Structures are given as C-alpha cells and as structure tokens.
C-alpha cells in the first residue's frame, strides 16, 4: 500500500549516499520487504509470484535458445533438432522453454480465476485487472509466435490458419494478411519477423508486469474476505511481505516447479503434438489441426459460429469482454465467499471454460455421447461437439453480459466482516484482540 510510510533506514554510509541519489534499495524494501500484506492470503494468492518465475524462466531459456536457433525456412527445423541432439544440454533448455509456456498458462488461468472469484477486479483495482488482461493477450500472441518457430507441420499450418483469420476482415483483410506474411503465403519473411517479435514481446510483457505490480501496490492486495482494510485495522490485519509471503510464495514456487520438472523430465511431449516433429510442408495439411491446449477454449468459440468473420469477432470478444469486467459486475461485495448465488454461477463458469477447452480438441461433427441418435438442428446434429460448443459459448458470454450485472443487483449477500481479524476474533474461543495482534508481529 503506497500510502504506508517508508520504513527503510539506510544501514551504512554507502546506502545513505545511494539513497539520496537513487533510492532503489528503499523501493525494493517498500515493495518486497516491509510491504504490508493482508494476513489471510491463501495459496491461490501465490500464483503472482509463480508467474513472475515463469516469465523469468521463459526469458532466460529463450535467450539461450536464440543463440542456436536459425530463423530460416531451410534451417529452422534442423536447427531445433540440432539443439535437441547436439547442443550441450540443449534438450533440457528447449523442453523447459516449450513446457514452460504450458506452465505459464496453467498459472495464469488459476491467477485469473482467483481474481474472478475474490472480486480482485473491482474498484479500486480496475487498472490492475486491465493490465493483467493486456499481459494475457500478449502472452497468447507470444505463445503463438513461438509455436511457429520450430517450423513443423503444426507450426506452419497453425500460422496459416491464424493469419487467415485476419483475412476475413471485410475490405482490408487481404492487404493485412499480405502485410503480415511479407509475401503471398506464410513463408521465410513470415518466419523471420515472427522470430523478431517473439523475442520482443516477453520484454513488453515484463514492462506491463511492472505496471501491474505498481498498480497493485497503490490499493494493496485484495484478500479472501474481499474488504478494503480499514485504516485503524492496518496493524492487526496486515503482516510485512517478508518473511511471511516470501516464505509462502517460495514454498508454492517449489511445489509448482516440482510439477514443472515432472513434465520436463518424464513426459516432455505430453502437451505437444506429434505432427510438429514433421518438417513443415506447405503442400499438405495435417488431418487434424488443433492449437496448443491453452488456446483451445478460444478455438472452440471461433468454430462455434457458422460465419467466418463472425467467428473471429466472437473469439476476440471472448477476451475483450474481460477488459470491461469491472463495469459489468454490479455487486458491491468483492469476495464470492459472501455471494451465495454468484459462487454457483462461478463454479458453472469454470466447468464451462474447461468444457470449451475439451470441445476445442474434438472434431465438430463427432458425437458427444457415442451411439445416441439425435436430430439435425439447423446445420448440425444436436448430439455433436458443434452444438455442445455453442451451448458452452452461450454460457460464457451470458455469464459476463447477463449474470454479472443482474445477479449483482438481485442477490442478497451474506454479512461481510468489518475487518480481516473480526471473523477470527468473533469465533467462539477466540483469543483476546491484543494478544492475538501481538502474536502476528514480525520476528
């Protein structure tokens, strides 16, 4: 919380000298050591730290991979194979980088669902949420550009399909795709510029992350109770970031890295596609083309709309709607802990989002329940992934555009505590206020 007074006291002559010229140690101290943090943050709050680690891993491994990778259609695939076979430890670095993208998305989705459940997007935290949406969008762009670089079959045809999406824009679509490709098809100029942009965007993400944290430190962290900590409760309701949350985040990061390592060392290709180990061939498209798992829900929404341009609009709208979320939710209660109706709609939303991911990996015409006959509704069998996807897509948009505004107005929330300490202290057998606060003190 920025309005807390700086507690930094320079310990040496050099620190005093530096503090008067560049107060960087003071900045670090106020942001990461003495930063007052709500004392009740649960493990869902550790994903911010986990995501920072993910970004650093991707940047470090990426810079190293770029020392060996050749962004040319004739050499890209072979240079990746050379990294895998000949470069010292190259297999490890590349598997960390490719699985790291998946880990990054697992963490960001949990981080976003946490923000959604506890109302972390509501006033005064709208800008934090919007900056987060920008980061998410940049992550999608970076991941897509990176997936093209190995120049396998999935890389190539994924790039063809996604760039052709923009070709559906009326009038200017064709000029845009030609401009993006630097030619008349996805080819060497495309690969070259995708490499350049893939190298650039992570640093843009790092910059926006800086803004995200800066904006976070103005009102301070939200918390599971969802209340803004009253001024007179500051001392009782917050603890210094270090050591309380450095240790908690550190533990969560270690557990997360264990899962990460399990993928890298025991099943490094589980999240990829075998077709991407076939060199790109512009003359043959793989039989079943799907994006990486983390983009499947959006791919499903794209396919749910029968019109080409309409599908593109729906797909971008599904991300765009997140940007205006702070103004769609009319409830004044942040945490869904105290919103008995909304939490059910939220649980359904999580299931729908996962369901859309599942649908995105299926063939649209395939039966959802095998062997059950149905009838043709408009343009497809009712018992098909096409219609399941459409139903889930409808809920996705209804959740944001209808449920969010209306439930907020109609719902009677449960009583919200005045401070973080009060639900603890009002419980039977609670310790007296003074001694409890004393026990929370640092050191």
């Amino acid at each position, binding site marked *: 919380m920025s309005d807390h007074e700086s507690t930094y006291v320079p310990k040496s002559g050099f620190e005093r000298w530096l503090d008067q010229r560049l107060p960087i140690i003071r900045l670090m101290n106020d942001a990461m050591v003495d930063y007052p943090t709500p004392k009740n943050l649960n493990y869902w709050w550790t994903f911010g730290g986990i995501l920072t680690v993910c970004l650093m891993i991707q940047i470090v491994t990426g810079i190293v991979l770029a020392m060996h990778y050749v962004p040319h259609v004739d050499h890209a695939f072979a240079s990746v194979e050379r990294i895998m076979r000949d470069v010292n430890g190259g297999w490890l670095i590349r598997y960390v980088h490719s699985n790291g993208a998946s880990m990054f998305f697992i963490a960001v989705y949990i981080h976003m669902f946490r923000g959604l459940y506890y109302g972390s997007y509501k006033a005064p935290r709208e800008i934090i949420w919007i900056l987060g949406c920008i980061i998410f969008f940049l992550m999608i762009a970076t991941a897509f550009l990176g997936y093209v670089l190995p120049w396998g079959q999935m890389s190539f*045809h994924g790039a*063809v*399909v996604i*760039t*052709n*999406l923009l*070709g559906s824009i009326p009038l200017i679509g064709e000029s845009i795709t*030609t*401009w*993006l*490709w*630097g*030619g*008349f*098809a*996805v*080819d060497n*100029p495309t690969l070259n*510029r995708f490499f350049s942009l893939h190298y650039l965007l992570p640093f843009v993400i790092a910059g926006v992350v800086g803004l995200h944290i800066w904006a976070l430190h103005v009102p301070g962290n939200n918390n599971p109770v969802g209340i803004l900590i009253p001024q007179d409760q500051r001392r009782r309701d917050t603890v210094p970031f270090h050591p309380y949350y450095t240790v908690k985040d550190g533990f969560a990061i270690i557990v997360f890295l264990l899962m990460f390592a399990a993928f890298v060392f025991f099943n490094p290709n589980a999240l990829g596609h075998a077709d991407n180990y076939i060199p790109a061939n*512009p*003359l*043959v*498209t*793989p*039989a*079943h*083309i799907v994006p990486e798992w983390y983009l499947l829900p959006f791919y499903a929404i794209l*396919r749910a709309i*029968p019109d*080409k341009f309409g599908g593109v609009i729906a797909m971008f709208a599904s991300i765009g709607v997140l940007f205006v979320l702070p103004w769609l939710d009319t409830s004044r209660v942040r945490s869904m802990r105290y919103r008995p109706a909304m939490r059910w709609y939220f649980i359904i939303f999580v299931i729908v989002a996962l369901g859309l991911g599942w649908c995105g990996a299926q063939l*649209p*015409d395939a039966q959802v329940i095998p062997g059950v006959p149905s009838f043709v509704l408009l343009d497809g069998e009712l018992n098909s992934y096409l219609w399941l996807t459409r139903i889930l897509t409808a809920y996705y948009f209804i959740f944001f555009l209808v449920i969010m505004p209306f439930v907020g107005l109609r719902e009677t929330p449960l009583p919200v505590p005045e401070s973080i300490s009060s639900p603890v202290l009002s419980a039977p057998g609670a310790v007296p206020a003074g001694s409890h606060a004393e026990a929370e003190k640092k050191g």
Partner: protein
Amino acid sequence: MADQVGTAAHGEGQDPTRRDFIHIAAGAAAAGGAAMAVWPLINQMNPAGDTLALASTEFDVTKVAEGQQVTIKWRGKPVFIRHRTAAQIAEARNVSMGDLKDPQPDSERVKQGKEQFLILVGSCTHLGCVPTFGTGDYGGWFCPCHGSHYDTSGRIRKGPAPLNLEVPEYAFLTDTSVKIG
C-alpha cells in the same frame, strides 16, 4: 501560461493568438513527421522486391495423367493442376446454379478447349488449409481442417468456406505448357 501572456499582450480575450497558431502548427508538423517516419517501418513488412519477382511459374501439363492431380508451389502456395475425366467435367457442368454457395459456371473456371485441365490455388477459402484430392461428398476436394467440401470444378458445396477455390491467373503458352501468374 504562454497563452495567457499572449492574450494579455494582444488584449484579444479568448480569440486565438499567433502563439496558439504556432503551437498547433508545431504539433501538426511533429505528428506529420512522426507519421512519415513510421510509414517505412510499417511498409517494410509488405512483400519485398525479390518476393514479388517470383510471381510466375511454368509447368508441362502432359505430366498429369487423366484423373490425376499434380500439386506445384506458386508464390509459396500450393497450386492444383487436375486432369479431369469426361465424367468429372460433365458432373461439374450439370450442377444447377441454385445449388451453389458461390455460383459460377464450370466454363468460367477453365480455358476454352482445355476443359480437362482445372488449375486452382490449393488453399481453402476458409482458413487456408490444403484440401485433399478426390475426397469429400462431391468428388472434388475435402478440407481436413474444418470440413469444407468442393466439387470437381473446385466450387464450394458444403462447409464453412465462403468462396470457390481461387483460379489463378494463367495462360497456355503452347499446347502443353502453362504459365501460372
């Protein structure tokens, strides 16, 4: 502040002053200059001269046996050269225009006297995948990505693709040699 000084000096009240004009003119010059500086940075991504120079290719159609298709690369995209059988040509001609999503008679999609050779850009008009030869419900092509069916004239019959497979610009140089592009 500058505006106030100007106003006081000229005593013109809220009327625009010479200083306002200079502000606007300087701002406009800076914006125009920035736009002109940005343009080459954007335009460099358009196709380069050598890419544009590779715009045509020649092919000997006798290499394609009747009923078969050869795929060649033109401007980075696949081009289908299909040698159609008499039955396939008849099938393509006998479709009523009302059944077509993007109505176009077969005669407009081939060269007169060379009806057996159908030359198409092998890029699905939906999202650019390469349709597979001889499959689908209409005996033409089937796109594996999102299920578009094309007939023996390369016209869209079923599925999400909005348009027929594109006929590239081409001409027969001799009886057997065709120049695409």
